[in-house]
C-alpha cells in the first residue's frame, strides 16, 4: 500500500471500527473482539506507515478543500508517527485492560463506551497526521468533543460537573486562543501549512511572535499549562481506561504534541531560538511543573494525584519545546512516548486496585502489595519511569530534555527539573511504600485478590514497553532525531 493509503486508513479503520462496534450491543464478546481487532489493525497500519516515513516518505492527502488555501490535509512526518504509534499501540493494551475493567466493574453502556473510544482514537490519529495547522485544530476539537461522552460516562451529577469543567476549559482555550492563533498565523503568514523551518521567515516583530506563542501555549489547553490545567483532574470522573489512555496518552499528548508541532513546523526551531519571549514560557512551564507537583504531593485520591502528576509532566514537554533546540525537541518527542508508557501503567494500577479492592485513596492502600503483588510491582516500575530513573523509558527522555536545557544554557530550568524529580519521587514513592511495607489495616484473610487477568496482561504489556524504550532507545532516539533533521 502506498503511504498515502496507509495514512488515510489510520483514520478510516478506527472510524469504521466505531461504526461496527456500535452495532454489536447484543454480543459483547464480538464487540470486544471488534475493538481489539480494530486496534491491532490500526497499530499495524501505523507501523507500516512508520517504516515508510523512516525511509523518507512524507505522504500528503487532502481530505476536504473546505477553506480555499487551507484544506483539511493529512500528512505524516516522524513526530506524528511517534505519536500515532504510541497512541495506537497503547490502544491495544488499553482495550485488553478495558475488557477486564468494564466487566469487572459491571459498567453500564459499554457499547457506547467502546464506540466513542474508537471515535476518540480516530480523532487522535487525525491529530497525529494533521498536515496543516487548521487540520490540527479541527482534529483537536474533534478529540475534545468525542471524549466528552467518555468522561461523563457515569451520567451522574459528578460526571456532569467534571464534564463541564473538561469541556469548558478545553473549548474556552481552543476557541478563545488556539483558533485565534491559527487565524492569526493564516492572516500573517498567508499559509497554515506545516513547513520545516517555520512560516515566519523574515517576520521580526517580537511582540507579534510573543503574542502568537502565548495563544498557542495557553490555547492548546490539552497541554495542561497552568492556569488551564483544571480540566485534567476534573476528567478523572471517567472510568479508568479513559483516564489511562486518554488522559495519560491520547488527549494530553495531543496537546503537547500540538505544541511541539507548532514549535517545529510553524515557528521553526531556529526562528524560535532567536525569539526572546520563549524565556517567559519556560517560566510558565516551570511554574506549572513545580506547582502541579506540589499539589500532587497533597492529593490522597490516587487518580487525582496521578492527574496532577500528569499536569507537571506535560509541562516537561512544553518546557522542552520552548528551549527551541533540537535536543529539546527530541527530548519532548521522546517524553511523549516515555511518559505515556509510565503514566498509563500507573493509571492501570489505580484502576486495577479499584476493580479488585474498591479502593481509591492512597491511605487505603496499606499492605495492598501483599494481595496484589503484580499490580503494585507494575506501579513501582511505572513510578520509576515517571521519576526518570533507569532502566526505564523515563530516563531516556529526561536525558534529552536535560541535554536541551544545557544546550540552551538555562541553569534555572535544570534546577526546576531537579526539584521536579524530587517532588515526583515524593508523591509516587509513598504509594509504593504504603502498598508494600505497611501492614494492612484489616486483619484476617485478605478480602480480595489480584486484579482480573486482562488487567494484569495490560499491565505486563505497558511495563514491558517502559523497559523496551530504555533498552532499545537507540532506534527510537534516531527516529525522533529525524524531526529536526537528525542530531
Amino acid at each position, binding site marked *: 500500500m502506498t503511504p498515502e493509503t496507509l495514512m488515510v486508513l489510520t483514520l478510516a479503520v478506527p472510524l469504521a471500527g466505531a461504526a461496527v462496534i456500535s452495532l454489536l450491543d447484543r454480543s459483547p464478546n464480538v464487540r470486544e473482539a471488534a475493538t481489539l481487532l480494530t486496534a491491532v489493525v490500526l497499530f499495524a497500519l501505523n507501523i507500516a506507515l512508520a517504516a515508510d516515513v523512516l525511509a523518507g516518505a512524507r505522504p500528503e492527502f487532502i481530505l476536504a478543500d473546505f477553506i480555499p488555501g487551507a484544506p483539511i490535509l493529512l500528512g505524516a512526518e516522524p513526530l506524528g508517527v511517534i505519536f500515532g504509534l504510541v497512541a495506537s499501540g497503547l490502544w491495544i493494551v488499553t482495550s485488553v485492560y478495558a475488557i477486564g475493567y468494564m466487566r469487572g466493574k459491571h459498567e453500564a453502556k459499554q457499547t457506547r463506551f467502546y464506540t466513542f473510544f474508537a471515535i476518540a482514537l480516530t480523532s487522535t490519529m487525525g491529530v497525529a497526521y494533521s498536515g496543516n495547522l487548521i487540520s490540527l485544530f479541527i482534529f483537536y476539537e474533534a478529540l475534545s468533543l468525542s471524549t466528552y461522552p467518555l468522561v461523563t460516562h457515569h451520567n451522574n451529577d459528578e460526571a456532569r460537573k467534571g464534564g463541564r469543567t473538561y469541556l469548558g476549559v478545553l473549548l474556552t482555550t481552543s476557541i478563545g486562543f488556539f*483558533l485565534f492563533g491559527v487565524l492569526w498565523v493564516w492572516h500573517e503568514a498567508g499559509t497554515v501549512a506545516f513547513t520545516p523551518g517555520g512560516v515566519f521567515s523574515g517576520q521580526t516583530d517580537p511582540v507579534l511572535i510573543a503574542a502568537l506563542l502565548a495563544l498557542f501555549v495557553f490555547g492548546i489547553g490539552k497541554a495542561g499549562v497552568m492556569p488551564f490545567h483544571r480540566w485534567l483532574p476534573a476528567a478523572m470522573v471517567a472510568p479508568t481506561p479513559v483516564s489511562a489512555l486518554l488522559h495519560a496518552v491520547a488527549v494530553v499528548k495531543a496537546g503537547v504534541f500540538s505544541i511541539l508541532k507548532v514549535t517545529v513546523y510553524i515557528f521553526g526551531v531556529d526562528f524560535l531560538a532567536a525569539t526572546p519571549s520563549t524565556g517567559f514560557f519556560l517560566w510558565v512551564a516551570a511554574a506549572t511543573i513545580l506547582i502541579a507537583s506540589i499539589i500532587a504531593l497533597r492529593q490522597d485520591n490516587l487518580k487525582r494525584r496521578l492527574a496532577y502528576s500528569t499536569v507537571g509532566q506535560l509541562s516537561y514537554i512544553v518546557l522542552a519545546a520552548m528551549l527551541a533546540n533540537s535536543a529539546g525537541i527530541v527530548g519532548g518527542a521522546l517524553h511523549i512516548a516515555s511518559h505515556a508508557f509510565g503514566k498509563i501503567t500507573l493509571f492501570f494500577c489505580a484502576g486495577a486496585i479499584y476493580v479488585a479492592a474498591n479502593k481509591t485513596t492512597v491511605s487505603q492502600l496499606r499492605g495492598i502489595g501483599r494481595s496484589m503483588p503484580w499490580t503494585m510491582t507494575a506501579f513501582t516500575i511505572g513510578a520509576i519511569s515517571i521519576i526518570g530513573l533507569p532502566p526505564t523509558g523515563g530516563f531516556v527522555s529526561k536525558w534529552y530534555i536535560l541535554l536541551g536545557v544545557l544546550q540552551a544554557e538555562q541553569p534555572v530550568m535544570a534546577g526546576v527539573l531537579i526539584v521536579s524529580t524530587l517532588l515526583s519521587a515524593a508523591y509516587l514513592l509513598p504509594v509504593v511504600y504504603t502498598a508494600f511495607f505497611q501492614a494492612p489495616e484489616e486483619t484476617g484473610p485478605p478480602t480480595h485478590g489480584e486484579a482480573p487477568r486482562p488487567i494484569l496482561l495490560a499491565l505486563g504489556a505497558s511495563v514491558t514497553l517502559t523497559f523496551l524504550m530504555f533498552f532499545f532507545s537507540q532506534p527510537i532516539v534516531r527516529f525522533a532525531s529525524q524531526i529536526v533533521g537528525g542530531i
Partner: protein
Amino acid sequence: MIAQFPALQVVIPLLGAPLCIILRRGALPWLIALLVSWAALAMAATLLSQVADGEIISYALGGWLAPLGIEYRIDTLNAFMLLLVAGTSSAVLPFAYKSVAKEIPQDRHYLFYSGFLLMLTGLLGMAITGDAFNVFVFIEISSLSSYAMIAMGRDRRALSAAFTYLVMGTVGATFFLIGVGLIYAVTGTLNMADLAERLPPLYQSRTVLAAFAFISVGILLKLALFPLHLWLPNAYTYAPSVVTAFLAATATKVAIYLLLRFGYTVFGAEFVFNIVPASEVLLTLALAGVIIASFVAIFQSDVKRLLAYSSVAQIGYIILGISYANVTGLTASIVHIFNHAVTKGALFLVMGCVAYAAGACRLESFAGLGKRMPLTMAAFVIAGLSLIGVPLTAGFISKWYLVLGAMEKGWWPVAAVILATSLLAAVYVWRVVEIAYFRDAPADAPPLSDPPLALLVPTWVLTGACVYFGIETSLSLGFAEQAAIQLMGGG
C-alpha cells in the same frame, strides 16, 4: 421557459396561495405548498447556475423595459438568496405536515399553507426585484402574511407577539417607504440600477442623507439588529414551530440582503462607508447585539426563546461582517446568512420535534430527552455545535472569515469578541445538552419517544446540511465570495 423563470419564481407561489384556499380539502393545501416550494427551489437553482459565472440576468416584468417597468435583476447575491429562501421552505414544508396537524386546528390548515406561500412569495420577491418600490410591496406581502402566521401559534401570547411585530414591521416598512419616496423625489427613478447611477452626484444632498437614514432604520428594524430586535424573541417563541423555523432562517436574512443591496448597489459603498459613518454605527450596534443577546440567551428558561436571542446575536455577527467594508467581511456575512439559516433552521425544527412530542420547549421539559428522544437530541447537539462554530460544521466557516476579516481590518479586539462570544454560545447550547443528557425526567413524566419520520427526516436533512456545508463549502462559500466581490464592485 427558462427565460421566464425570474417571473415564475414569484408568480408561482403567488398563484399557489389562492389555490390552497380553493382546494382546502385534507392534505391538498400542504401538497400544493410543497410542490410550489420545490418548483421554486428548482427555479432558484437554475437561476443560480445561470449567474454562477458572474453574469447578471435582467428581466423586464410584463415586457416593460426598465426604467419604466419593473426590472428583476439577478446577480449572484440575488440568486443565492432565492436559493436560500426556496431551499429552506422546501426543507421545512415536509416537516409542516405533521407539525401543523398537531399545532393548528384542522379547519385552518388551508389558511396556514396559503399564508405560508404568501410569505414565500414576499421573501422571494424581495430577493429578486430590482425595483425599490416593488421591494416595499413584497415587504408588505411577506410581513402581513407572517403576522397572521405568528398569530396562529397555540399560545395566547402569540397574538400580542404578532401585534408587536405588526406595529414594528409597519413602522419599519413605512420608514423604508419614506426613504424610497425621498430618493424618488430627487432622482425620479425607482429602478435600483438607475438609482445607483444617479445618486453619486447627489451624495451631499440632505434629502439623500435623510433617505438613507429612513431606509437603513427601516431595514435594520426588519432585520432585528440590536436594539431594534425587540419584536423578534416573542414572535419566534410563540409562532408555530414551522413558522419559526422558516422565519428564523429567511425573514431576517432577506432583510439583510436588502441592507446589502441598498448599501452597496443603490447608495454605493463609497457613500455608505465614507460619507455616512455607517461602518461605526453598524460595528457598535453589532458588537453590543452579539454580546448582550448572547448573555441574555444564556439565562433564558425557554429553549425557543433562547434560540431567538441567539438569532439576535447571530444577526449581530452578520452585520459585523458588513461593517468591515472589505471583501472578507462581506464574504463572512453572506456565508453566515446561509450557514446560520441552515443551522437555525435545523435547531428550530428540533424545537418543533420537541414541541410535537412534549408539547413545550421549556428548559425543564428537556430533562431526560437525551435518552427518550435520542435522534432528536443528537440533531440538536450537532446543529448546536454549528451554532457555536465548531470545526467541520457550517458555523465554523463563517466564524473563520469573520475573524479573518477583523484581522485584515486590524480590529483585534473585535476578533477577540467574536471568539469569546462563540464561547457564550457554547454555554447556552450546553445548558440544554446537559439537561437533556444528565437530568433524569421526572418520575411522573409521560412516556416520550422520537417523533415520526416525517418530522425527523427534514430535521436531519438540515442537520446534515450543517455538517455538509462545514466540509464541502464550494456552494456556500464559493457563491458568497463571488457575491461579495460583485457587491464591492470587483466583478
